[in-house]
C-alpha cells in the first residue's frame, strides 16, 4: 500500500540574492499544488501514471516554470515545447517535441502512448494527432509571459548566436559557430 510522488521544477542558477521572499513563496506554492494534485490520485488508489500526468499539468499551467504556459522563447519568438511520459509496468512510452499549440504537452505525450503505436511525434503532425485525440488546443499566444519574452530580447541584443539554457545561464552562453561548444546549442 506504500506510495510516493516526487516532482521537480527545473535545476540551475537559483541565486538567493535574486530570490525575494514573495517569489520563493510562489515557487513553493506551485510545487505544493503539484504535489497535492498527484498525491490525491495516489491516495485514492489511482495509478502512478495518472498521478504523474496530474502533477505535471499543474506545473505546466503555472507560468513560473519553463513548461506549458511560461515556456521560454525560441530565436523566432515562438514557444516550442516537448514532453514525455512512460509507464513502468509495461514499458510503454509516448512523447512529443516541438509543439506550439497544445495547452498541456504532457497530455499529448500520453495520447501518443495510449492511442498510437508510436513513441514520438513532432511538430505539426504531433499537434494534429493531439487535437484528434482530444487534447486541448490553444492559440500560441496562450504561452506568452513577459519575463520570458524579455529574456529573449536581452540575449538577442547581446549576441543572437547565443543560446541561453534556463538551468545555468553562466555556463550556457554558447559560443560562435565554429567553436567547439557551439554544437551543444
Amino acid at each position, binding site marked *: 500500500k*506504500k*506510495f*510516493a*510522488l*516526487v*516532482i*521537480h*521544477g*527545473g*535545476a*540551475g*542558477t*537559483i541565486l538567493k540574492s535574486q530570490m525575494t521572499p514573495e517569489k520563493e513563496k510562489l515557487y*513553493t506554492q506551485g*510545487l505544493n499544488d*503539484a*504535489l497535492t494534485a*498527484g498525491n490525491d490520485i*495516489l*491516495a485514492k488508489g489511482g495509478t*502512478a*501514471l495518472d*498521478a*504523474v500526468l496530474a*502533477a*505535471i499539468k499543474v*506545473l*505546466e499551467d503555472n507560468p513560473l*516554470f*519553463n*513548461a506549458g504556459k511560461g*515556456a521560454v*522563447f*525560441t*530565436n*523566432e519568438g515562438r*514557444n516550442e*515545447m*516537448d*514532453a*514525455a*511520459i*512512460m*509507464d*513502468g509496468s509495461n*514499458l510503454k512510452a509516448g*512523447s512529443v*517535441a*516541438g509543439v506550439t499549440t497544445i495547452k498541456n504537452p*504532457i497530455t499529448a*505525450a500520453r495520447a501518443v502512448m495510449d492511442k498510437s503505436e508510436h513513441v514520438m511525434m513532432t511538430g505539426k503532425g504531433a499537434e494534429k494527432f493531439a487535437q484528434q485525440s482530444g487534447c486541448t488546443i490553444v492559440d500560441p499566444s496562450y504561452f506568452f509571459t513577459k519575463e*520570458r519574452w524579455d529574456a529573449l530580447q536581452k*540575449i538577442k541584443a547581446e549576441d543572437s548566436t547565443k*543560446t541561453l539554457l*534556463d*538551468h*545555468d545561464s553562466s*555556463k550556457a552562453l554558447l559560443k560562435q559557430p565554429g567553436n567547439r561548444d557551439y554544437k*551543444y*546549442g
Partner: protein
Amino acid sequence: TVGCVALDMYGNLAAGTSTGGMTNKKFGRVGDAPIIGAGTYANNATCAISCTGWGEFYIRLVMAKTISDRMELAHQSLKDASDEMIMKQLGALGGDGGMIAIDKDGNIAMPFNTEGMYRAYITSEGKKEIKIYK
C-alpha cells in the same frame, strides 16, 4: 523543465517530463526531455526518472536508462547509481543539471550539480518536503 515520478500502491512506477527547452534555441533543437531513456524513463523492475538540465549531455549519457541499467545489471542502489551519473559523469563531461528518481521500494533520490533545483516529494507515510537550494 518540470517533471514527476511516482510509485502507486500497486507497485507501478511512472515518469513524465515537460519543457519549453532553451531560450533563443534554433533549428528545431530538441533536448533530452522527450527522449525516452535520456530525460525520461520508468521500469517497474528498477526505477522511474525525470531529468532537468543541459539536454545534450543527458542524451549522450543516455542518463535515465543508464541509471536503471546500473541498478538492474550492477545491482547499485538508486542513490549510488544516480549520484554516479549526475555528480560524477555529467560534471566530468561539462554538463549540469539534476534529476528526480524513485525506485520500486519507494526510495527517493534528487541529485543535482547546480546551485539549486526546485524539488519536492510526498509519501504515503505523510512525509513531505519542498526544497529549492542545496
